[in-house]
């Protein structure tokens, strides 16, 4: 079988490597600066998908594969997208029935973990 293999200049690996660090750092910053709401999860998802894309495309050599393979591997997960969307709708519904029929508190506040409380207190002093 003709296997030329996947040989590519090392430079590109280093580049992607670096890029992954930078993207991870950015997504870390999202948390560090306590961004909230839509902006927060938009950024998280964008950084996540970028990282995933680079790993699959470059490190796993997907970019250089023939489209027959790319197509064969990337289309089936569409079923998962359907599952995810439907389950999101379903969960939303289940949650609303719980809130409506069982009188649960719709937006409860979580407790902070003990070590966190401690360090917050120290800051306060």
């Amino acid at each position: 079988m003709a296997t030329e293999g996947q040989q590519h200049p090392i430079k590109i690996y280093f580049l992607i490597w670096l890029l992954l660090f930078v993207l991870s750092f950015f997504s870390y910053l999202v948390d560090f600066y306590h961004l909230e709401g839509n902006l927060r999860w938009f950024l998280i998802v964008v950084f996540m998908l970028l990282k995933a894309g680079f790993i699959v495309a470059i490190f796993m050599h997907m970019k250089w594969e023939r489209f027959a393979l790319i197509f064969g591997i990337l289309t089936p997960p569409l079923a998962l997208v359907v599952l995810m969307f439907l389950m999101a709708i379903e969960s939303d519904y289940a949650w609303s029935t719980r809130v409506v029929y069982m009188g649960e508190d719709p937006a409860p506040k979580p407790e902070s973990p003990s070590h966190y409380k401690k360090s917050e207190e120290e800051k306060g002093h």
Partner: protein
Amino acid sequence: MTDTTLSTQESIFTSTARDWSSDMTTFKGVPWGKAMMWIFLLSDTFIFTCFLVGYMVMRMTVTEAWPVASEVFALTVWGVSVPLLLIAIMTFILITSSGTMAMAVNMGYQRRKWAVFWLMLATALLGASFVGMQCYEWSKLIIDEGIRPWGYAPDHDLGAPQFGSIFFMVTGFHGLHVSVGVIYLITVAIRVVRGKYDHTNFEIVEITGLYWHFVDLVWVFIFAFFYLW
């Protein structure tokens, strides 16, 4: 008989149609093991996604409060609480290991066996240290924070009990993949220097790499969904 010279000018549609309608092989030039690994990873993607969908459902349906991840996973360094420090280091390690793995693949195709060996070994060591840090993280959560798979230790109630359950299950399953990967890497590395693959093109290194990068890929999603979200 088919001529497999691959013209680069072909559109992807023509080339795909041609590959899928050709005889003998559908993925031209792809060794058996690599095709099999890709399909296995596809199957594994379904496993992890089902786990993550379970996580989504849990988080969306519970009416108790969901603990704030950045507080729970914060590390106190010299009295200052730094959010996600340990996780940042673990991510750093895993990405680094992906880099060394990619280099190993490259060296493999240059037939530099010892380079392959050392790079794969480095990858395995980084993977093992990742697992070690995960153990540390788990023990901290269990002992200090009182988070248990079934809920919370007394006096530690942070809200929904599903938080710990799903966290330990998914990171545990990922950790299992990393551990298996470490063993797999070491085995292949040793077999490479022993000359077991000399008659091949060392695609085994690439196949191992596929698995390893996949584990890294899963971590990208876990990092975003469990620690940041």
